[in-house]
């Protein structure tokens, strides 16, 4: 019989990591401070002691170097999990990710697989200011050859890594620092997590709220508030930002005829833009109202709390936006 346990988002990742390391000798974790420090955000705390230096490798500050090394190790038969401490530093490794990881299979005419998993912490919410608060999901999602996962729930924090490690292609897993201490219940025998489909987290009939990452719980809570006012919102967690599962959200829009897309990333050229334009192309005649986006304000994220919070959609913004779509 299925039981549930209470678990933090951080602990869910750690359990996923531990399980992976136990299951397959080819798997190792490398990244800045993943070992002796215990992980910049304590996700891998204790793993060095459990698995030893060969499996939990602290690396110097050299993002291009060690991400490239992870790609090379993957080419040569290992299954590296490379942790890039945060997405902000990920720009330094972008050439390796795009020009090598995402491209080698194609350039080699199908000969070379790059089964590397790259975990990256992402997002706003810790008052870390402009150089430490990027939401780079849109950038990764632009690149053919990458599988891009966004971890919006505790189930996915627990299970996505496992499935990602089965992929013969490079997988980017985007994790959210601001959610690490959040506790939720998950099933103890939830089974393998799918990494090709979006998920209807709450079904509803009045509007589709499409989101991912830090948006998921925010939108769920907003949906609860809306329910109290008689609005039955459907909430979809995209989960896979590339390749996008459009079936799920198009089906939802065909049912609700309205959509709001919510994300923390900057508005222009974002995941939301892509979703909106796909709805435009493929569900235009289903729409009873124009699709709206709630995104990050287009500003390098400021340090003070009040400005930081004003930079991304909050629950009250979501509730307000939904109401405005339903009762214009």
């Amino acid at each position, binding site marked *: 019989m299925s039981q549930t346990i209470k678990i933090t988002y951080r602990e869910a990742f750690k359990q996923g990591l531990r399980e992976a390391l136990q299951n397959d000798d080819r798997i190792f974790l490398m990244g800045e401070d993943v070992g002796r420090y215990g992980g910049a955000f304590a996700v891998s*705390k204790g793993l060095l002691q459990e698995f030893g230096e060969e499996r939990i490798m602290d690396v110097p500050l050299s993002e291009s170097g060690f991400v490239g090394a992870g790609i090379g190790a993957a080419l040569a038969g290992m299954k590296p999990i490379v942790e890039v401490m945060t997405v902000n530093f990920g720009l330094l490794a972008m050439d390796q990710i795009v020009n090598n990881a995402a491209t080698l299979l194609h350039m080699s005419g199908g000969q070379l697989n790059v089964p590397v998993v790259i975990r990256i912490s992402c997002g706003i919410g810790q008052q870390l200011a402009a150089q430490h608060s990027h939401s780079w999901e849109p950038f990764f999602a632009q690149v053919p050859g990458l599988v891009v996962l966004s971890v919006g729930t505790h189930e996915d924090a627990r299970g996505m890594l496992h499935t990602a490690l089965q992929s013969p292609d490079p997988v980017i897993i985007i994790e959210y620092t601001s959610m690490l201490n959040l506790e939720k219940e998950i099933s103890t025998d939830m089974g393998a997590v799918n990494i090709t489909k979006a998920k209807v987290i709450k079904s509803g009939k009045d509007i589709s709220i499409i989101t991912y990452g830090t948006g998921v719980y925010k939108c769920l809570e907003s949906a609860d508030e809306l329910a109290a006012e008689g609005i039955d919102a459907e909430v979809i967690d995209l989960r896979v930002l590339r390749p996008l599962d459009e079936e799920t959200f198009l089906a939802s829009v065909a049912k609700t005829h309205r959509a709001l897309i919510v994300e923390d990333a900057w508005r222009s050229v974002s995941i939301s833009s892509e979703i909106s334009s796909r709805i435009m192309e493929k569900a235009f005649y289903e729409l009873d109202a124009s699709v709206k986006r709630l995104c990050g304000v287009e500003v390098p994220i400021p340090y003070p709390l009040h400005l930081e919070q004003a930079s991304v959609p909050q629950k009250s913004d979501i509730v307000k936006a939904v109401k405005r779509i339903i009762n214009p």
Partner: protein
Amino acid sequence: MPKTKSKKIDLDAKKSRHLFYQMLLIRKFEDKAAEEYTKAKIRGFLHLYIGEEAVAVGVIQALTDDDNVLCTYREHGHALARGMDAGAIMAEMYGKQEGCSRGRGGSMHLFDKSINFFGGNAIVAGHLPMAVGMALASKKQKKGNITCCFFGEGAAAEGEFHEAMNLAALWKVPVLFVCENNLYAMGTAIRYSHSVQELEKKGAAYGVESSAVNGMNLMDVIEAANEAVQKVRDNGKPYLLVCNTYRFRAHSMFDAELYRDKKEVEEWKKRDPIPEFQEFLLKQKIITEKEIKKIENQVDSEIQKAVDFAEAGTWEPIDQLTEFVYSENETK
């Protein structure tokens, strides 16, 4: 541990007292910042410089007002040594618009163009190429000023270090690279981040003159910095000065310090640059116990003033959120 070597520097009493004052101000300012952090007045990352004060103070005293200074996120000490107002720094860390960066930056992003203080950069090694470019500008403009760029030993593993050293040497531009080797990059000890740990040896790969100095002793740093700055100024060429030092506190307020021994920290604390310099001044009779007390009081009151200033500061209105994205003061 590196030894203190004997040196010959002329420090007049006034300057000595001022440097002592600066070190003490940095120390106590950061103690206060840590306290305000626990009260949640300051948020985000807070990286303390405690234990490393002799480096910033010793190097920056060698610069002129026209020289440019670039630092990392661990830059309160440098900002104070450069003469930035303590109140403007504290207000910045509070996130108030009276802060040196209008509160937009916080602890990691202190800027003050009026004193040629160019941050406060939080991408490790990201400011090294910029420093080379500033020095290139000086050369092109024949300004005669130099650029001084502080960074940690961890940063020296990044490709940007290599590119910056090569460009600076090739272009022969007046930049002083100051590597603050505090032996750790977050929790990664230098033996895990560098195959060659004597970082001054890296200079030879670029034909950049370099040397190492005991960064725990102010007089040693002053001697080395004066010499290095003079060379950069005279030759218009880069110089790499490695200051071997130690941070007494955690990497940031989020760090449980699992990676090093308490004993190691205690050992290094015995070499605290502040009591050492104080002893030196007393022994040389450059200063009296009474004067020290006076300086301490002065520091305390300056810090109190800074906190008061920060407390009295105001929040930037939310409707100004999109300012400073483009120069026209509006998001286009």
